[in-house]
């Protein structure tokens, strides 16, 4: 219901308005094709960057005898969980003429020189960094399944380490690489936070930001336009996924034999070099931007050099105690994230149970419907909700638009898949005989749920709640289109603060958000020790 109805409405409005002929002014608008071009190029180059960073990390951390793997892996996963608009802010704080960090160490470029990140290149770079963990995860799961004995057999056949990499490992990891590339591309197409913060100041519009700006300057044809624009995003995403399908064909290398121990390469003298490279990348993509973010949040005013004397926590006081809007945003985001994660859990425990246990054909249809919002960018979801609920609901006459509830509904359909995946993997590893034994003991369905199933999938359920909470709390794409006065979320407030020039306040709020992300991820990490495989994405 939550996914089919809004998307149907989106398609309906899109088709109606193209039939009315509204399509031609839009299609002949050069801004549209400019945006399509920008979207395609930033997503494509972003995908290439994700592939090289994520692929390198996956190979090094999975296959080589590197020290401190779990710490490196955890740090590398952080950018994925940090909201994109925060990533963008921190990188802005790191580069450019008014960077507080660069000023503090005396390396800032002269005033008046351009911020290098306000460009296609900047957007691509940040998209690449943001989505590199997706490639990493997808490639890593494939690499972990490589059996040690297959590699040993190749070595006994006389192949050197490089030959083994070229002839055995790369071909076998192609499916993971292709899947990772597709996810990175689709995520890039739908990314709003980065392209909004970096693109809008330089008038570089991508499709999601074009929708946003059309929506801000509301007009008669707005609904038709945004329906068509988000249709375009959907088409590009689907094309990307279709290319992936195509590339996957004939690459069904199911690993034969036991994949007990993961393969390991002894790097010897190269180990130090590789380790240094990995830590350097972590420094550049994570530590430096976050330091810059903290520095900007402590600066007394934008552009003023930061020293121990000028440092001030004024910005934190401002957002925590003075600004009513940040408090509202905190409450809204926490409320939305809590309700979304808990309600979704109730639904997904049952859905996952019936998906895994059920045998009827109806289940295939259901799992496909559930996966649609996962593949479609959040912009498309929110636009469909705008279209569905802009007018009062027929019969009851309640207007959802402009309330928190519309955001909540959109969250339900956006994060359903995020919540479902850990539960499905928990249930697939749940031996059905445990439940059958309970049935023969005389326990009915709800009794089994309570005594047997819930205690055993409990840790996975906890992980699912934290994951959804984490993502929902930091979300911007959906709420950017659905918010109105009083229903701002954290993502929206950070974006608006930056948009109105309060860079220090935006940074301070971002620092708090990042701190929250890290705490929640550490919680997951601790929980992860008790979890079945595949529940916490970055653990194995």
């Amino acid at each position: 219901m939550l996914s089919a109805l809004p998307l149907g409405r989106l398609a309906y409005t899109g088709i109606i308005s193209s039939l009315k002929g509204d399509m031609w002014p839009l299609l002949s608008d050069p801004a549209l094709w400019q945006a399509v071009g920008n979207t395609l190029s930033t997503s494509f180059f972003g995908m290439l960057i994700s592939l090289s960073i994520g692929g390198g990390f996956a190979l090094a951390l999975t296959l080589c005898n590197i020290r401190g793997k779990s710490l490196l892996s955890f740090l590398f996963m952080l950018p994925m969980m940090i909201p994109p608009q925060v990533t963008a802010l921190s990188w802005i704080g790191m580069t450019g003429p008014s960077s507080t960090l660069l000023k503090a160490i005396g390396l800032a470029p002269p005033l008046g020189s351009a911020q290098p990140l306000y460009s296609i290149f900047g957007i691509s770079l940040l998209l690449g960094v943001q989505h590199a963990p997706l490639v990493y995860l997808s490639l890593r799961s494939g690499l972990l399944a490589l059996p040690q004995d297959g590699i040993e057999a190749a070595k006994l056949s006389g192949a050197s380490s490089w030959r083994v990499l070229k002839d055995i490992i790369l071909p076998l990891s192609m499916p993971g690489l292709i899947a990772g590339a597709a996810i990175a591309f689709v995520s890039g197409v739908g990314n709003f936070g980065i392209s909004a913060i970096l693109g809008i100041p330089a008038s570089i519009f991508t499709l999601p930001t074009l929708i946003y700006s059309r929506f801000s300057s509301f007009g008669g044809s707005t609904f038709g336009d945004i329906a068509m624009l988000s249709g375009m995003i959907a088409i590009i995403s689907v094309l990307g996924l279709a290319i992936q399908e195509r590339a996957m064909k004939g690459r069904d290398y199911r690993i034969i034999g036991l994949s007990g121990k993961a393969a390991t390469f002894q790097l010897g003298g190269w180990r130090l070099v590789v380790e240094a490279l990995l830590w350097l990348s972590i420094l550049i993509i994570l530590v430096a931007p976050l330091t810059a973010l903290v520095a900007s949040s402590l600066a007394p005013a934008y552009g003023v050099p930061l020293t121990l004397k000028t440092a001030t926590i004024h910005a934190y006081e401002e957002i925590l105690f003075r600004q009513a809007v940040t408090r509202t945003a905190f409450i809204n985001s926490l409320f939305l994230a809590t309700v979304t994660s808990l309600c979704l859990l109730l639904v997904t425990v049952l859905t996952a149970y019936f998906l895994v246990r059920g045998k009827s054909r109806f289940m295939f249809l259901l799992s496909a419907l559930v996966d649609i919002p996962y593949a479609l960018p959040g912009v498309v979801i929110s636009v469909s909700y705008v279209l569905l609920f802009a007018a009062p609901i027929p019969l009851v006459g309640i207007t959802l638009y402009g309330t928190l509830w519309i955001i909540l509904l959109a969250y339900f359909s956006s994060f359903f898949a995020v919540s479902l995946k850990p539960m499905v993997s928990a249930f697939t590893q749940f031996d059905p005989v445990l439940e059958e034994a309970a049935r023969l003991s005389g326990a009915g369905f709800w009794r089994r749920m309570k005594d047997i199933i819930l205690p055993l999938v409990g840790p996975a359920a906890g992980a699912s709640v934290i994951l959804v909470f984490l993502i929902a709390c930091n979300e911007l794409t959906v709420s950017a289109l659905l918010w109105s006065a009083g229903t701002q979320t954290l993502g929206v407030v950070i974006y608006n603060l930056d948009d109105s020039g309060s860079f220090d306040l935006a940074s301070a709020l971002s620092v708090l958000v990042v701190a929250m992300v890290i705490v929640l991820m550490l919680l997951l990490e601790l929980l992860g020790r008790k979890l079945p495989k595949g529940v916490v994405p970055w653990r194995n």
Partner: protein
Amino acid sequence: MAKLILNRLSKSFGGGKPAVNDVSMTIREGGFLALLGPSGCGKTTVLRMIAGFEQPSDGAILLGERVLADAGSMVPPERRNMAMVFQSYALWPHMTVAENTGYPLKVRGITGERYRRKVMDALATVRLDAYAERRPSELSGGQRQRVALARCLVTEPDVVLLDEPLANLDRHLRQEMEETFREFHATSGATMVYVTHDQAEAMALATDVAVMSEGRLLQMAPPAELYARPEGRLVGSLVGQGAIVSLKIPEAAPRALDWEMLKTAMRAEEGISPLSDILVRPQDVLQDAEGIACRVSSILYEGERYALRLTLPDGQALRAYSREPAALGAIYPIAIRSAWRL
């Protein structure tokens, strides 16, 4: 308690051959039936239908007068008062040994002193009372199996189902557990259905053995009868040791054949009788200077004796036991004490 009746039971999982095809049998009250057959013969499906995890496509399952399942309706497993020992034990990892054992009581609303006493009695029966507060993960394979058995004991079920319960245990433990099962059957008086692919296990434990192949019931009989009078080539090859040879035997001859008839049949150059399958057990093949000259094609020392593989003059194989070693390729004349026409 009452007898368990399977009436023309069939199950197909859509497309292809049915997994269980027209199986009828009656298991008497307090009986111990072993379902024997190679893997994929449908024996586990029969067990799961008795338990209520699968619904029959055709036919019915009755416990006394009560219809448990047919193609239209089905009593769910939780209301059948049955218990099952699973191949993988199916112990709940988040409960202690005592909680695992007592769960069926808890579901039935039994609490307090009565609950505690029943659990401890059941654990004492399987000699695990000292382990009541352990978790399943702290137990060995044999101990886990005994917890699963205690869970069956605790509620006095009408029928106890056992799905290859010894498949994951080593040989020494198997013998110990076989003893435990026998005791359990004798003391509880429950009707038991035991699935196995190991004929020695089936013969040693059961009061009746049902042999299945490709979804069909081939023969059901007490172990001694099954051994002495198997029906058909498949049962003959599955139960006990032996060799099956083709001989021309008059159709009027009895099924139990003596040496006179066998000698005639084996020496006849041309016969008008059709070929029959004859099961010859190795202990019935004796060395006899007057007998038929075979050649020794392999010899295997088994400790208490030698197992010989012999080749008859027409090229068919026989098996025999010998106290003395024989040279490979040597002539070994034999007589056959008795044989069974399949």
